[in-house]
């Protein structure tokens, strides 16, 4: 163990200029060296595995962020219903338009992820969805700007 620690110390001295000079070293290796500074080998093994899945980790972190964003938006939408009823106007017209479009975009995106398979098909479907969502948002904004706006539209429809 003492010899291992000594190698660790030696590595720390020797590794620094090496790491500085070689910026192309993979991040995993840098993390590995850092962990070795703390404790030579025992800690290093799980550290490596964590570092190895770096791309997977960042991917799942993004997915987790996306998941949280979907929930936050859903809660916001729940609040927008009474807000739009109590304070109809341009602010809520555009907020509701943006929130509904994004909620729909993410929701349909999930449906496509579930049912569409194959790289090209997914790419096409996602591109089509993006276009549809953009057109939808443009249409709702156009309606808010040139017409009565979404809040008033619902109120008027209910008075027919």
């Amino acid at each position: 163990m003492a010899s291992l620690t000594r190698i660790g110390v030696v590595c720390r001295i020797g590794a620094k200029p090496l790491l500085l000079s070689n910026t192309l070293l993979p991040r995993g290796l840098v993390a590995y060296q850092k962990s070795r500074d703390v404790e030579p080998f025992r800690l290093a093994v799980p550290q490596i595995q964590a570092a190895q899945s770096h791309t997977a980790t960042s991917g799942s972190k993004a997915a987790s962020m996306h998941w949280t964003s979907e929930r936050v938006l859903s809660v916001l939408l729940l609040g927008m219903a009474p807000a739009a009823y109590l304070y109809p106007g341009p602010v809520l017209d555009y907020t509701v338009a943006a929130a509904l479009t994004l909620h729909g975009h993410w929701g349909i995106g999930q449906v496509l992820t579930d049912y569409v398979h194959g790289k090209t098909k997914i790419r096409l479907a996602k591109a089509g969805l993006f276009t549809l969502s953009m057109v939808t948002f443009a249409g709702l904004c156009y309606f808010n700007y040139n017409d009565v706006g979404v809040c008033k539209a619902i109120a008027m429809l209910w008075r027919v």
Partner: protein
Amino acid sequence: MALLLRTVARQGLYSSRSQFGVLYRHAVPMGTTAKEEMNKFWAKNTRLNRPMSPHLTIYRWSIPMMMSITHRGTGVGLSAGISAFAIAALVLPGDYPQYLDMIHSWSFGPALITATKFALAFPVAYHTYNGIRHLIWDVGKGFKIPEVYRSGYVVIALSVLTSVALAAI
């Protein structure tokens, strides 16, 4: 001495690098994402020429199952409705009050108007209440099977009551 230190250090680093390579190979399966796992699953299904799962026809339909697909159905339907409305706003001539006047002039009976309002309000109410149910699941509550059924019945009851009330306005 410095040279000796450096040589040892380099050797240490190289050995660590090669060890790193070995571990890298072992670490790969652990570092797969859910997406990669799913792709592997689909590739295997295609390769083995397996039939598509789930086989909807072999299940006895349950309330939670029907509610789940209804949530998705109402979501897709409402989204399609919003997109249709937005595209209509872009391409149709005339403005919104004009079209409402047109509908008014056709003088549908109150029964049809109320039924239409119910048909519009129900998917919104259902998707909203069931969305709240989903959000409660998302914080990790209500997963026991009796709770799933109970919350389901609450959602159905509230959706019907709300949409009846909205249709009656």
